C-alpha cells in the first residue's frame, strides 16, 4: 500500500500517521510529502491528510492549506478515483477543498475537546471500513476545537440516504445520544465519505488508536480495511491479467 502523508506547516499528527501505517501495519512504502511539492508521486494508493493546525488555523481551519501547491495534485488524484483519508485537520482541508461536502465549525460547547470517544460504524461497505462490522462501536480519541459538522439540510439528506455517513458519535453501547456528541455535529456525524466512496474524512484520530498500550487499538481497523481493499484490488488485477494470458 503505497502511502503518502502530506505535511503542511502546522501538521502535528503526520508522524502518528506514519507510525500507524509504517510501523504498526508494516507498510514499508510510506513517505511524507511536503506541502510545497507539486506532486504526490506516481502509483500512489493512499494519500493521508493528517491532523494538526495547518497554517495555524488562520482565516478558517483548512482554508489556507487547501491552496498549498501539493493540493492541486491531491485534488486531481481524488477526482481520478484515488483514495484519500483526511483526519481531523485533514477532514477540514477536504471540506474546504470541496472534495467533501459541508464544513466544520466551532464546537457547540466552545471548548477544545480532547478525550476518548465512541463511534458507531454506520457503513461497512467502504474502502475504509470493510474490516469493521456494521454497528461495531470503536473507541478512538478526538482532539479538536472545530469539529462541529454542518451542511445544508438537502446535503445532509443526501449523505444519509447514500450511506455516506460512516461513523457517528455514540455511547459505548452504540446509542446515538446528544450526550455522546462532543461537538454539536448534525446527526452526531463523526466521519463521511464522498459519493464515489474514495475520499473519507473524520474528526477522530484512528492513527492515535493503534496500540493497546496507548488506550485503544480500534483505529487500526481502518488502516487494516484500507490494506485489505488494496490487496483485493491487486488480486483482481492479477486474475484479470491471468485471464488475458490464458
Amino acid at each position, binding site marked *: 500500500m503505497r502511502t503518502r502523508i502530506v505535511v503542511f506547516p502546522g501538521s502535528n499528527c503526520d508522524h502518528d500517521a506514519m507510525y500507524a501505517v509504517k510501523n504498526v501495519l508494516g507498510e514499508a512504502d510510506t513517505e511524507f510529502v511536503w506541502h510545497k511539492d507539486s506532486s504526490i508521486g506516481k502509483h500512489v494508493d493512499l494519500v493521508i491528510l493528517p491532523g494538526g493546525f495547518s497554517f495555524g488555523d488562520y*482565516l478558517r481551519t483548512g482554508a489556507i492549506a487547501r491552496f498549498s501547491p501539493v493540493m492541486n495534485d491531491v485534488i486531481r488524484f481524488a477526482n481520478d478515483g484515488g483514495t484519500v483519508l483526511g483526519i481531523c485537520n485533514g477532514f477540514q482541508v477536504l471540506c474546504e477543498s470541496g472534495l467533501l461536502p459541508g*464544513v466544520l465549525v466551532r464546537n*457547540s460547547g466552545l471548548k477544545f475537546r480532547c478525550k476518548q470517544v465512541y463511534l458507531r460504524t454506520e457503513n461497512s461497505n467502504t474502502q475504509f471500513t470493510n474490516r469493521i462490522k456494521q454497528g461495531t462501536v470503536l473507541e478512538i480519541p478526538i482532539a479538536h476545537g472545530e469539529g462541529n459538522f454542518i451542511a445544508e439540510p438537502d446535503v445532509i439528506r443526501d449523505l444519509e440516504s447514500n450511506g455516506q455517513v460512516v461513523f457517528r458519535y455514540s455511547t459505548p453501547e452504540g446509542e446515538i445520544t446528544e450526550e455522546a456528541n462532543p461537538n454539536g455535529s448534525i446527526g452526531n456525524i463523526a466521519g463521511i465519505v464522498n459519493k464515489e466512496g474514495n475520499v473519507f474524512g473524520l474528526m477522530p484520530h484512528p492513527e492515535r488508536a493503534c496500540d493497546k498500550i496507548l488506550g485503544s487499538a480500534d483505529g487500526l481497523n481502518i488502516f487494516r480495511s484500507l490494506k485489505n481493499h488494496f490487496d483485493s484490488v491487486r488480486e483482481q488485477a492479477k486474475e484479470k491479467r491471468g485471464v488475458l494470458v490464458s
Partner: protein
Amino acid sequence: MHYQVYVATERKEAILDPQGKATQHALASLGMSGVNDVRIGKFIRLDVSAGSKDEAVKIAERSSGELLANPIMETFRIVEVKESSK
C-alpha cells in the same frame, strides 16, 4: 491606481455563532440589556493595485468568494473602497 478594499464576512443566520452568543451574555452581564444578539464576523482590508475602482472591487469579490469566505457558512460584503497612495 491603488485601492484599499474592506471586506466583511458574516456567518449565515442559520449557523450558530457560539462566540457571538458568549459575547452577548457578557454584554447582558454588563447591563446592556437592549443588545438582543451578537454575531461575530471578520473585517478584512485588501490593498489592491487595479486600473479602476470597479476592477479593484472585482478582484476583492473574487478573493472573497474563493478564499476569504466559505459560501457554505458565510456571506461577504464589500463594505468600503478607498483610493490610497500606496
